């Protein structure tokens, strides 16, 4: 098994974007941030320490923020490089660099188990509306699945999937016009 620190080092842009995403949602929700570590050699590879959000929805949003930001950002970065590399085997150095960035960022889209725990505590809270509980509980399950799945490289498959899916959908849509 490859230690998580090495994988984090190889995919460090993803860790940085993950923490920036937490920070971004703290900013949107006006939640005070006390400390941020964008990357370090250790476990966890990065962290954001913030105050307890005022509402459950804010807590959930801050928790799942990286899932949204990392996925969209990875798809955007890898988009122009994915077609020449994957469809026509004609990528140049820049294309491969963007592909690495895209996969690295998408690999860290899954919130950590610490994030999942925070979201789960929020879901379990008695004050949380039933609708939010129903919508969020499966998400927490998925996050845990992602954490367990990282042992069988599920995060890597997700990363590759994200960068392939966007261009493929667009090409299929445009081909039908």
């Amino acid at each position: 098994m490859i230690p998580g620190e090495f994988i984090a080092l190889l995919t460090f842009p993803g860790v940085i974007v993950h923490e920036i995403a937490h920070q971004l949602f703290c900013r949107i929700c006006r939640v005070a941030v006390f400390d941020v570590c964008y990357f370090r050699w250790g476990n966890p590879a990065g962290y954001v320490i913030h105050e307890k959000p005022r509402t459950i929805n804010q807590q959930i949003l801050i928790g799942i923020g990286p899932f949204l930001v990392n996925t969209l950002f990875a798809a955007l970065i890898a988009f122009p490089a994915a077609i020449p590399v994957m469809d026509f085997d004609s990528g140049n150095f820049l294309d491969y660099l963007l592909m690495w960035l895209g996969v690295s960022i998408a690999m860290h889209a899954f919130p950590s188990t610490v994030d999942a725990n925070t979201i789960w505590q929020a879901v379990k809270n008695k004050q949380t509306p039933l609708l939010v509980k129903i919508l969020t509980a499966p998400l927490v399950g998925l996050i845990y699945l992602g954490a367990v799945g990282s042992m069988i490289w599920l995060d890597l498959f997700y990363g590759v999937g994200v960068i392939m899916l966007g261009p493929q959908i667009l090409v299929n849509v445009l081909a039908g016009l």
Partner: protein
Amino acid sequence: MAKAINENFIFWQVKRTNRNLLVLNGLSLAGCLWLVVVWFLPLCRLMAGGARLSDELIAAIAILAPMFLVSAWNVWKGVVRAKNVSVHPIMRRLAQYGEPEKVRAEMDSAVKDFWILRSGPLLVVPQWLFYQTAFNLNIIATKDLMWMYKKCSSNQIGLIPAGNTYEAIFYLRSGKNLKVAAADKAVDQILNAVYSIAPWVVAGFAYESKTMWERKRGEFIATVDKRREELIKQPAMQQESAAQEIPLSQEEKYECRECGKEPEKGYEYLLCPACRSRLAARKLPAGIKAAAGVIFLLLAVSLSGLPPVLNAAVDFERGRRAEARNDYLAAKDAYQKVVERFGKHVPSLSRLAVSACYAGDAETADKAFSKLEGLKISQDLARELYAALDKLNALNGQEQP
């Protein structure tokens, strides 16, 4: 560290760090020479024989030259320091505390007779902390210690807990910090030992202390210095009780923890609206902003070349769809556009050849087949191409090749 407890502690550290520097860089230099013999020289010989290996040669030079220069520079430094220990960084560092020889003698004496705690690479003696690494010895005067606390990190691999790691963190007058990793109890022992010789140091973690250290460091240092002066003035018996009285955390008051103004309601952590907005809008470090700028620039460059590539991908997909509904004429036209952009793309060339054959366009098929010559294709694809060629020959009433 056991060997370090001797009469010549500082000289021993100078020798140890210099020896490590020489051994590591000597090995690196030897490795460099070995690579020159087994890699660089054969490349030069091959190039002299007319082989085109300029890329390999550039790669060899790019790897070997910095490696050689850095190793040689470090070996030279090691040799100079071995001849004259006064130029060693450890000896030069002593100068900031006074006459180097006198300071060295004081340190040696303290280490020999008065050491308080040894824990891994850390040695605590009255007035000094020594922390050794492979190539360095960090020397910290206790008067430069400002803040210390214990840090516990919980580790996980996936969902499996992988234990905790503990560190004693020391913040220094210079703004730097020293992290000493050790076992749980050892970290407690270290902090207690340091507190026993420097009771003025702020002990324990609090966000208030962190905020003050980051934003009002001068004030933080002045407060610690004042506490130190007060403690030094007091008789020994009073010092201990005074140290106990130093508040490590303030009593909770209903006020903003940053500025003391009226806090915002509805939050557990007490902050006024202005301080909360400021902390929420924490700025990104300049390095990350610069890196993001570079990434967006690369992205823009890559996006500028996207339209023709995207058109080719769309044409390829359209060709596949046309082929699926047996509209070989449309498929041929679509694949032809792809081949104009990616002339050596085997799937596009082969689909163009097949579509042209079924569409009865011998000229296009001939061009596609000639471009496929010399390219690697699978056996299944070869069979499909031969079948298409048969179909074309049949359509044109020719004999099979």
